[in-house]
């Protein structure tokens, strides 16, 4: 009489799906795969783990993505364990051993003050990744919030926010960095500020474009019909869906951020000596590049590998997360 009340049978999903109902709360799953692919998840976390696993297994199929992920993981590990991995403190000078070629004592040679290039490159990972992390943490949320707000509310709010975005977009990154350095004095913090100030508009644009497509959807209308205000709808309905394109864009831009940070260091506007910033190291090695190539080569190689890693990871993430490519 009431077909709606009957449980409808449905096809099994996934080859490892266990018998429905075999695992109930309180019982220990037989295998982690059974847990992940159980047809009827019984907790919020199980559902989350499963979608995380699906993303991870989609990434696994692309060897380049795995390589990118490995490089980034390696960089993070090096940054964390730099004191353990380094042969000596990065700023320890030994003028008797200056400009030694790579060899048993110093794998990457020594620089003009007798400092171990290998140790300095390792410690440089901390600075570069630190700059990348800070820029990402500033730029992602600001770009998302401004873009989603402009897109969702529209009207004059949209016009004002987008004109502000245009103004920042019109500032050349290096010129703005010069201005900041002139105003605040050189340092790694200025590099972060300069990159962040010029980087967020792109994310605001991306987020706004996504929001424009989302704001007319029925699930947003349904949220309005539940009584949710604009802020709640932006934060809880729209942002989660804009997040993946912003994350993809961010991970592709991380390589660029590393390059700009190194460029600023090279020009003397970023991290200041004696801190082992890769760009600054290349800059000081420039004087010896013909005879003592290793002073500039190894930090350059580090920049190269780091940008490559982030680029590969970004490409892989785009393939997995971008709903348009799915």
């Amino acid at each position: 009489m009431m077909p709606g009340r009957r449980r409808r049978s449905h096809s099994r999903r996934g080859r490892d799906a266990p018998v429905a109902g075999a695992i109930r709360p309180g019982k220990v799953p037989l295998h982690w795969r059974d847990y992940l692919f159980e047809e009827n998840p019984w907790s919020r976390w199980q559902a989350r783990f499963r979608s995380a696993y699906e993303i991870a297994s989609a990434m696994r199929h692309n060897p380049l993505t795995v390589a990118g992920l490995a490089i980034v993981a390696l960089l993070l590990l090096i940054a964390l364990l730099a004191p353990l991995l380094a042969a000596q403190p990065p700023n320890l000078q030994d003028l008797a051993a200056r400009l030694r070629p790579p060899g048993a004592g110093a794998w990457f040679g020594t620089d003009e003050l007798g400092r171990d290039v290998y140790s300095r490159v390792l410690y440089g990972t901390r600075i570069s990744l630190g700059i990348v992390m800070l820029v990402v943490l500033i730029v992602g949320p600001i770009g998302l919030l401004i873009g989603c707000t402009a897109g969702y509310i529209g009207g004059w709010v949209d016009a004002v926010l987008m004109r502000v975005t245009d103004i920042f977009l019109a500032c050349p990154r290096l010129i703005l960095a010069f201005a900041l350095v002139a105003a605040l004095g050189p340092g790694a913090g200025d590099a972060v500020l300069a990159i962040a100030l010029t980087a967020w508009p792109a994310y605001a644009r991306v987020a706004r474009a996504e929001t424009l497509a989302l704001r007319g959807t029925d699930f947003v209308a349904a949220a309005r019909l539940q009584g949710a205000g604009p802020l709640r709808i932006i934060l809880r309905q729209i942002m989660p869906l804009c997040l993946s394109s912003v994350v993809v864009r961010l991970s592709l831009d991380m390589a660029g951020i590393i390059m700009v940070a190194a460029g600023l260091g090279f020009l003397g506007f970023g991290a200041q000596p004696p801190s082992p910033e890769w760009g600054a190291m290349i800059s000081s090695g420039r004087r010896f590049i013909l005879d003592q190539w290793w002073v500039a080569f190894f930090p350059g190689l580090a920049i190269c590998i780091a940008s490559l890693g982030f680029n590969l990871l970004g490409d892989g993430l785009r393939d997995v997360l971008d709903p348009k490519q799915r």
Partner: protein
Amino acid sequence: MSDPLALTVIGVENLRVGFGGGAQSFPAVQGVSFSIVEGEIFGLVGESGSGKSTILRVISGLNRDWSGRLTIRGQEIGKRRAKRFYKTVQMVFQDPYGSLHPRKTVDAILYEGLAVQSMDDRQRRIERVLYDVGLQDGFRFRYPHQLSGGQRQRVAIARALILEPRILLLDEPTSALDVSVQAEILNLLRELRVRRRLTCILVSHNLAVVAHMCERIAVMNRGRIVEELDSASLRAGVAQDPYTQQLMRAARGYDRAIADSFVDFD
């Protein structure tokens, strides 16, 4: 229905809606009036673009560009709605593939409304409403892409019902579904309406669906109600208005001779 004024739950008087301001404004709804009594299910039928969904969007507060008079349970309603209003009026959308947030589990979708309306006892309410729409056991932590169309529409109905509304607006709730699933959803809606004493407006272009569900039906064409009739006369095919007669002929299936005889009613 001895005292229709006291029982009127939804009153619409001379409702007008235009799309696009200025001289080129398109009149989507041109002076529609009807009233619906407590516990009734009122059908709005008409072809695409006749303004029936627009009326629902006005009543629900999604469309704010309208004029006329609108009363809900005796109170005159303005263009902006308070948060409390949505505890009285809820809506089910046409497309179950677009009306659920793709990155949220069923649980999160249902929780959202409870959080907005700061209702208590949330776990129990979620369990109960899922049971009521026939999604007990194991659907709670699935994502919409792990559900079929009919199951999604059940979730959408659950989302509307979890706020315990008195009025349910149904915007073609079955037209995106498979025929066999349509019947299940319609029966579910009938049963829920009785059990929860809901007053409903059902918008559809499907005469059979409306005749099955509704006691009273208004036929719309070009933004006007051309005729109001009861379900018995709709089933019997008795209609006064020429447009309604034509709609009924069209609903019987495609016939070259009948199709050629169709005219536009302005």
